[in-house]
């Protein structure tokens, strides 16, 4: 049976429109690329927006050093295949320069550290617009986000004083030093993204599909066992499990889910039937009810 994908058409039209507005309204845009499904979807939408010309801006990856190796491998292949420019800035460098301090202990993660690296890179390249794959359905602070979200000199989000966005009109006028975070897939849900990946036959990293992995349990979540990156107590036993990742962040803050979904059709079905939210597997959101809002105020993506 042919699946009904008509719902994605208006979302795709909107996203392409937004990406074109970025290219037209800004001098130095960049697409923030994490190697996750949302930013991979953005790359496809950008290809569509400018065909037959190349994407007129580079990609930038803020590398925490805690990525899944499969993601990095995928990133490099994609960039090569599409002939895109890729900028990589490393959290490790920010640590070495003494700008940020590595967290320690059980829940240590570099997730919040990457904000400093990102803000430094924006300043280094004088980027005036950063395109990101955040969606409003992911998290309730993100539900309040504009499509063109203005950040001040310090990269901060002033959530109580956002510009109204009317009809299709996007106001990208900013002062020197400010930049805009742009979210073309704001109105997509997780299921929309997956359905789009299926419809468009978009390649994604292998860790999104079911595979056997050395893992251990903590707080009811399944963690990848990698003693260099992920803290593990001695009594936390490593076992092989059939898992996949529903969201891909750092190894230290992204938990796996038990799954047998080995192809895109099964993944779409699994998401459709799911009763748990995507970010339920993200420990970075579980620090407090306002974890995301706090990080966003500080310039997090």
């Amino acid at each position, binding site marked *: 049976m042919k699946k009904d994908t008509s719902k994605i058409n208006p979302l795709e039209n909107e996203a392409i429109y937004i990406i074109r507005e970025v290219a037209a309204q800004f001098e130095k845009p960049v697409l923030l690329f994490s190697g996750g499904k949302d930013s991979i979807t953005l790359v496809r939408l950008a290809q569509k927006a400018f065909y*037959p010309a190349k994407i007129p801006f580079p990609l930038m990856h803020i590398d925490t050093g805690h990525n899944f190796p499969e993601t990095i491998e995928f990133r490099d292949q994609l960039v090569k295949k599409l002939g895109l420019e890729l900028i990589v800035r490393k959290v490790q460098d920010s640590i070495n320069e003494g700008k940020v301090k590595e967290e320690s202990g059980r829940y240590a993660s570099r997730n919040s550290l990457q904000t400093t690296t990102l803000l430094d890179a924006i300043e280094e390249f004088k980027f005036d617009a950063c395109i990101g794959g955040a969606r409003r359905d992911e998290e309730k602070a993100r539900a309040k986000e504009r499509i063109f979200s203005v950040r001040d000199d310090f990269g901060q989000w002033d*959530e109580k004083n956002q510009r109204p966005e009317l009809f299709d009109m996007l106001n990208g006028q900013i002062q020197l030093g400010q930049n805009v975070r742009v979210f073309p897939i704001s109105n997509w849900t997780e299921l929309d993204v997956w359905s789009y990946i299926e419809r468009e036959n978009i390649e994604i990293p292998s860790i999104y599909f079911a595979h056997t992995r050395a893992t251990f349990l903590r707080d009811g979540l399944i963690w990848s066992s990698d003693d260099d990156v992920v803290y593990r107590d001695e009594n936390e036993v490593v076992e092989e499990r059939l898992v996949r990742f529903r969201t891909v962040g750092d190894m230290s803050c992204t938990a796996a889910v038990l799954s047998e979904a080995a192809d895109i059709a099964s993944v779409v079905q699994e998401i459709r039937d799911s009763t748990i939210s995507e970010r339920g597997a993200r420990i970075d959101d579980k620090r407090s009810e306002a974890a995301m809002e706090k990080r966003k105020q500080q310039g997090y993506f």
Partner: protein
Amino acid sequence: MEVLKIATAGSVDDGKSTLIGRILYDTKSLTSDKLDAIKKTSKQKGYDYLDFSLATDGLVAEREQGITIDVAHIYFSTQTKSYIIADTPGHVEYTRNMVTGASTSQAAIILIDARKGVIEQTNRHFFINNLLRVKEVIVAINKMDLVDFSEAVYNKIKEDFKVLMEKRDYQEQNITFIPVSALKGDNVVHKSTNTPWYHGQTLLEHFEQLDTKDIYNVGTPRFPVQYVIRPKTEEFHDFRGYAGKVYGGELSIGDEVVALPSKTKSKIKEIFVYDQLYQTASRRSSVTITLEDDINVSRGDMLVKAADLPTVDKQFTATISWMDSQNLVAGNKYVLQHGVNKVLAKVDAIHHKIHPDYSGIEENIQALAMNDIASVTFKLNKPIFFDPFKNHRTNGSFILIDSQSNNTVGAGFIQ
């Protein structure tokens, strides 16, 4: 599958967030982790019911004060439709937020507290949704549980509301009344046994059967050029494509078009969606168009059918909604963004203020303050290509940008 965007309007404590939470809960759209969080927080706060507003009030300040500060977007789907609900705040800056929410919605819910009935704010909520020409309005008379599900109360509110309806400008707007209790779930998703006298649909049933396709009158095609694509590669050496979104109608290969403002004529040669060639570009699709002739077209220009031109003028009168804390006064200059086109605009005259509670107009106005609605004439440094808002929602609207702060300070609907 269709997408329906719904804006909500209600005063503080009318229960908007609770209603949205109820819809999510009853359609099983709340995932178990989100539901657990709501249960936990409700218990911590000592409530004896689940506080669904916790699902939508995303900011710390909102949860602390128990109010909605900024528009939140909530997503859920059923077998027939995908829904986007814009949860707009009911208190300060409500006009600004409601205008914003309504501008992208096909339907609106206006909440009325059954104990309070039609109040001044209700007039405003209705006025704005009518001004923005939102096609479908649902008047949800909420907190019916607190008036013993009284049919008399419901009928009284309905009659009061009908008085308002006679005053509206956009008469074709469809209006539906539904008695609900968001907190208890009556007539939201499931039919209530407490209102045997009510034979209409529940809120969700009503949305489910709405035909959202072509909900706005199909006008005439307008193609504002967003971006000129020039690949300059060997394969596409002379390619010159005009990227943009089609509004108001369709464009097909072979159509005779006029480029504005140059008024140069040409024909549509190709229509691309990515690497696929199409015969026709449908309404609201993002496409790339090439023309038979090599004419000069750049961002902000517009392609239209030769037989159907918009008004091209450097002066017009519009109803505007002012959204900034700094007043608008005659003589002020702003950047006027009309679609993707930007020009400079000078406020030529403020004709009158329109009271959004239907209490009439006020003349001899010197300045407009935040949340004011008024009739204003603008003079531009360059002509724009527009249609009246009542004929063309997209090509009849604009925003005003303060050139110092760069903020969006107002929205306008061309008369």
